[in-house]
């Protein structure tokens, strides 16, 4: 109640605080102006406090540990500088793991997105039992990743796996799923695709349904076929959603763990590290060798890699979104310059007015706006 009555006062308090303060109603006025300023932050604070405790603090603590030779049991360590980072980077396993991570990421994300767009486009048509099909594509997503990995690993057995049996039945040589690096990446990517294609399909389907139908009608009137409509209307309109899907699958892809971990009985990435991924190696260093200093260093390296790729994504996003959203023909620099000019003139006006008649400042700025 108080709050609403003091709203105008607090809004203008910056300009002429002394005069307006007399309009304060009762004893709570001072408090409620603080209330007004602070409460928005207070309301969102639970998330940030929680993030501070379970997000930021561990990240910082990991950084501290990464400079140490850390003993988990005794909770102590000796400072050794960048040694852990140097050891990680100079280990050939790191580069193999990086290669595998990106290879599995590409093998899973690219076919997955193409399939997801295609399936979403099909589901966007007038088909019978729409809800059934739409829920159907989400079904694999309901399965636990470890369960998926267990079943697929069994199917991809080198000697008695069902896939090699099928291949044998049609006269193809059995594929060495566990000793050929590329074959193992395909097998793992298959698990990822199985689980995530449906999820991405639904997100893209939602975006497709938001495209105004008028576009399609107009295109049909103009004589564009289905394929042309798909490439000229559907795909461009999906761009912002695609960016979201690409970013989430990048983060997920670079942290891939469950599937390679369950791919053989040891979970250490294969005899020649054929499917050793960064997170898998990280886990092995931490929980297999109890070398938490080195694991922390690797975690930070992974963090920086994801950050770098995230930045690249962001740059691309910005460009695409600008193309999408801006209606004016001005470039960004021109727009910025125009804004700067406008602000400067407003400030000049305001300064001039303040010296003449402080009470009117408010209305004037309002008018300028």
């Amino acid at each position, binding site marked *: 109640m108080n709050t609403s009555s003091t709203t105008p006062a607090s809004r203008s308090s910056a300009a002429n605080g002394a005069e307006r303060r007399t309009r304060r109603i009762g004893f709570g006025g001072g408090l409620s102006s603080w209330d007004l300023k602070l409460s928005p932050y207070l309301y969102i604070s639970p998330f940030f406090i929680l993030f501070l405790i379970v997000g930021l603090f561990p990240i910082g603590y990991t950084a501290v540990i990464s400079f140490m030779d850390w003993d*988990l*049991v*005794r*909770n102590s360590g000796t400072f050794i500088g960048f040694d852990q980072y140097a*050891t990680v980077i100079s*280990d050939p396993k790191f580069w193999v793991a990086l290669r595998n991570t990106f290879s599995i990421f590409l093998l899973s994300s690219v076919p997955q997105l193409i399939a997801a767009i295609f399936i979403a486009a099909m589901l966007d048509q007038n088909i019978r039992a729409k809800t059934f099909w739409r829920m159907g594509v989400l079904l694999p997503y309901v399965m636990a990743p470890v369960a998926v990995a267990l079943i697929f*690993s*069994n199917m991809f*057995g*080198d*000697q*008695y*796996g069902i896939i090699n049996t099928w291949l044998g039945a049609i006269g193809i040589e059995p594929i*060495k799923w*566990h*000793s050929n690096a590329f074959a193992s990446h395909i097998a793992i990517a298959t698990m990822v695709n199985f689980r995530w294609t449906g999820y991405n399909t639904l997100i893209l389907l939602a975006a497709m349904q938001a495209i105004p139908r008028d576009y399609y009608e107009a295109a049909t009137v103009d004589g564009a076929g289905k394929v042309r409509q798909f490439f000229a209307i559907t795909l461009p309109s999906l761009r912002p959603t695609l960016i979201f899907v690409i970013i989430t699958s990048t983060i997920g892809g670079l942290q891939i763990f469950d599937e390679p971990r369950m791919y*053989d*009985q*040891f979970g*250490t990435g*294969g*005899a*020649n590290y054929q499917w050793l991924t960064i997170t898998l190696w990280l886990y092995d260093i931490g*929980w*297999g*060798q*109890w070398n938490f200093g080195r694991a922390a260093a690797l975690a930070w390296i992974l963090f920086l890699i994801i950050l770098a790729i995230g930045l690249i994504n962001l740059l691309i996003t910005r460009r695409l979104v600008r193309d999408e959203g801006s209606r004016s023909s001005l470039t960004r620099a021109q727009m910025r310059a125009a804004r700067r000019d406008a602000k400067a003139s407003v400030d000049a006006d305001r300064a001039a007015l303040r010296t003449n008649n402080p009470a009117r400042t408010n209305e004037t700025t309002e008018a300028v706006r």
Partner: protein
Amino acid sequence: MNTRALRRIGLIAGVATTSALVLAGCGGTSGGEATTDPNEKVELTIATFNDFGYTDALLAEYTKLHPNVTIVHNKAATSNDARANYFQKLGKTGLADIEAIEIDWMPEVMKYADLLAPVPDDLKGRWLDWKEEGATDADGNLIGYGTDIGPEGVCYRSDLFAAAGLPTDRDEVAALLEGDWSTYFELGDKYTAATGKAFFDSAGGTYQGMVNQLKAAYEDPSTGEITATTNSDVEDIYNEVLDASATQSAHLGQWSDDWFAGLSNGAFATMLCPGWMLGVISGNAPDVTGWDIANVFPNGGGNWGGSYLTVPANGANVAAAQELADWLTSPETQIMAFENAGTFPSQNDALTSDTLLSSTNEYFNNAPVGQILTDRANAVTVSPFKGEFYFQINDAMQKALTRVEDGTQDKATSWAQWVSEVDAIK
């Protein structure tokens, strides 16, 4: 072998560091106050994994004798879960009064031996020599109460042996395999020549049986220095097993899906077989009638696996926990546990028990497994030294063997890669 000399070195090292222990171990022996009130109510927690055979009925036997004690038994599903939990909480709070550990974690546990209450001296001698030796720290303290062991025999498929024209009776097979590893591989040659099929499951599993007979395979027991790459014994074993595996191995890595399938489909005719493996075989190949076990192990004896109970020194009821651990690992209790879960006892007196010696296994054509495994346990002479980096080195070696088996690399390349990996360990 030079076991005795090494033991002497260990003794000297033990004496030399006793003074250090007195300083460091102040907290470690805080539970030594044996003057606990026998009527005081105590709740003891035990943490185990898989199945130790500690049923409620078995634990009730103890609480009947000690009415003041109540026991809470927590079971982890797998030893990996238990391992993560153990090292996260060791030296801090949250561990049970009695924590079970697997022999595989010993190198890591040894680093923190001062955080565990040692086994009282009067219990030394209860267990087989090599079982005790495996849990004795550098200061000569026994830190684990031995529970079970995994003495190894040779499991074989009598039906496949018959098809190859080899004897099928378990005593005849044992006589045939008496000798060192070359005898085993010679029989393998005969088998593969007759049938064209694989003789053993994998180079990795066989290598493990061979390397466990070395006193110090990878590290120098006195200095902890890594000697793996220059140890000619290791290289000899590596070459011997890979030469044989080229023709005799089914190339099925142990615990892989293919390997489990191989247990029942006859992909291989023999495998090295610790006592607990019998349950794995009968559980995964229930329809096969040919599996049998021979009372023999190439080149003497071998042990694979086994567990201990430990008492964390900072627990609330160390003295009471030690008393319970003592009872749980007594020969009589261990025999009860053996009847419950087939955990083969590591206690000297238990090995002469009639219950144990007369036990047979129906699945393995009524083989007298109690007698066989007891003989196998008595044949073990070596407790292999496993230092800080044992697992990293051994894991790299297993990968090296697999690389050759699956055709990724040849023998020499794979060995060279192993050497460079071991050199990088620090």
